[in-house]
């Protein structure tokens, strides 16, 4: 399964090469051109397969999904052989203790060390963990020993095997980095379609570090319309109050009307909703305005680009293990493919 391969591959922001190689291999037969730009974005062009239908039909559409994942970078090697590290992207310190990681090109295994409960005073157990002094233990006993295995600047990722959890039902799977390898997987599927416009599939770099890859990819591509594919926040676990879950697993693709990074183009939101209704595809709105996506950078490119974001709901994003439903994934592919076809007729001005 491509998603398994993508999830288990390691690509922290700024070091997406492994992900890029997998994707390139998967899409090669479907694209007419591709290039890798200065920031490491993989930009694939699938030329229009058919004649555009009308005056208002877009000629150039960009669909983006980011390749990078949150992780760590090694910032120091201690005398005792443990490693100091910095976070890349948004990671909650409280989830770090005792997690397994893989470091550098050679995938050196390590664990984020933390004292066992026996050694934590009662009062301290009530407080959030202070990970500022935490270090990664790779089993080395000296600085020299550690330096044989890793070097400063090496990236580290969580170490998580991809697994299918539920073969029937919601067809749930778990793995790391489903934000946004699931978007990459959807985009690979979309390239199997045939569209009446030039489709630029941008697999972007450094989203988690600040939407950086998408910014330059959109500038270079200069699209008329853009979609961003994401794995988004999902918190459908029981709640104390009647506040909304942001999204729910198994309820279909998520359409964003607004988040911290952008206000979705209303015409595109309507196009997505109308398409879902027409085809009987379940969909949900992202209820809440948290988070941001590559759309935040893309829609502000040059003179502005009408943009929308469509996501697969993913539980536990930015953590070692995330979970999604393959049914949501399949529906997202279908919704996007049909929406792109509908877009061939053009947007009202």
């Amino acid at each position, binding site marked *: 399964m491509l998603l398994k391969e993508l999830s288990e591959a390691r690509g922290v922001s700024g070091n997406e090469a492994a992900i890029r190689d997998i994707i390139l291999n998967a899409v090669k037969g479907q694209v007419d051109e591709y290039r890798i730009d200065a920031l490491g974005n993989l930009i694939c062009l699938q030329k229009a397969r058919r004649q555009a239908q009308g005056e208002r039909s877009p000629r150039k559409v960009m669909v983006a999904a980011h390749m990078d994942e949150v992780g760590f970078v090694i910032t120091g090697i201690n005398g005792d052989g443990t490693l100091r590290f910095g976070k890349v992207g948004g990671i909650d310190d409280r989830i770090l203790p005792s997690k397994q990681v893989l470091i550098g090109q050679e995938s050196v295994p390590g664990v984020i060390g933390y004292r066992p409960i026996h050694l934590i005073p009662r009062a301290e157990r009530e407080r959030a963990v202070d990970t500022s002094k935490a270090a990664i233990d790779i089993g080395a006993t000296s600085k020299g020993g550690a330096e044989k295995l890793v070097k400063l600047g090496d990236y580290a990722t969580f170490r998580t095997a991809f697994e299918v959890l539920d073969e029937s039902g919601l067809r749930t799977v778990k793995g790391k980095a489903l934000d946004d390898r699931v978007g990459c997987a959807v985009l690979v599927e979309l390239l199997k379609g045939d569209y009446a416009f030039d489709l630029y599939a941008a697999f972007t770099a450094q989203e988690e570090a600040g939407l950086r890859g998408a910014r330059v990819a959109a500038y270079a591509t200069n699209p008329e319309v853009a979609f961003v594919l994401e794995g988004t926040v999902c918190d459908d676990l029981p709640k104390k109050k009647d506040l909304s879950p942001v999204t729910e697993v198994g309820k279909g693709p998520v359409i964003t009307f*607004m988040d911290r990074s952008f206000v979705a183009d209303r015409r595109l939101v309507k196009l997505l909703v109308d398409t879902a209704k027409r085809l009987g595809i379940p969909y949900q709105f992202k209820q809440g305005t948290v988070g941001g996506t590559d759309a935040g950078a893309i*829609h502000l490119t040059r003179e*502005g680009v009408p943009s929308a974001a469509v996501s697969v709901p993913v539980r536990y994003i930015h953590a070692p293990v995330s979970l999604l439903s393959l049914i949501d994934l399949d529906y997202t592919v279908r919704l996007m493919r049909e929406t792109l076809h509908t877009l061939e007729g053009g947007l009202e001005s």
Partner: protein
Amino acid sequence: MKELIKKLVEAYGPSGYEVPVRDLIADIVRESVDELRTDSLGNLIALKKGTGGGKRIMIAAHMDEIGLIVTYVDKKGFLRFGTVGGVLPLATIGSRVRFASGAIGVIGWEKWLQPSSERPSLEELFLDVGAIPGNQLPVGVGDVASFDRPFVDMGQRLVAKAMDDRIGCAVAAQALLDLGATPNDIYFVFTTQEEVGLRGALVSAFGVEPEVGVAIDVTKTGDTPEAHPMAVELSGGPAIKVMDSDVLVHPGVKNWMIKTAQGLGIKYQLEVLEFGGTDTAAMQRSRGGIPAGCLSIPCRYIHTPSEMVDYGDVQGAVKLLGEMLSKPVEI
């Protein structure tokens, strides 16, 4: 001009949903401009062509206002919401809001009358749109609302929701209508999505590619009973921005404004805004950088449903802007 202001402040237009404001302004300026277009983020760009030899100038006033966006509807029909721009939860209690459809909502908070209650958090607030069990709700998730308050003319002082920045739109539109022959090509840009991050100005400045940019926006004052010290007051004349959180104004642009005001003999004040930013910053950083400044209208109670400005300051701003634009510009 009060009629124009009333129309603009009472129009509905939260960030991303500025269409009614845009339609209104387009109707007002259409006959007086050489080109009128809307870009992909909804900015309204009105060009008044010069007689030649002048500069390419961008004037930016934002059409959007802060608002609320529905995120959840409970079983009884109460709505939870997120904010669009810098909405202060405390300032919303008991307020009425209006949706694009015209539906009205009231903002509720149960702890209102409890002694020693703390400031409300957004999660505690809800919207009541008059739901009756079994009836269809007039609004749903993703719908956006703005404050709903009528314009009040106190004579010298004017009060309304969305003075920020419809008063800037009114100043720009009035200056445009009054403008005679000028050597400059002037792009009056009525921008979108300022309140959520200067987004409309960023892309429109890229498109217009001006040589000079001037934003027209409101600024805070230091003239209320126990205000944080700030040397800006109502009735002190339009304010010429020197600095805010996002920009250091280009000295050439600042001096252009000061000299013009002095030449006209109208009152003005210098503005140093410690917290807050405007479209000035977006224009300044467009492409290879653009000299940019800001003409500010002093305004009390910004981001509440009752923003207050002084009519004399407003008229001063129109006069100053008109004079600035009508002559050759040296920065």
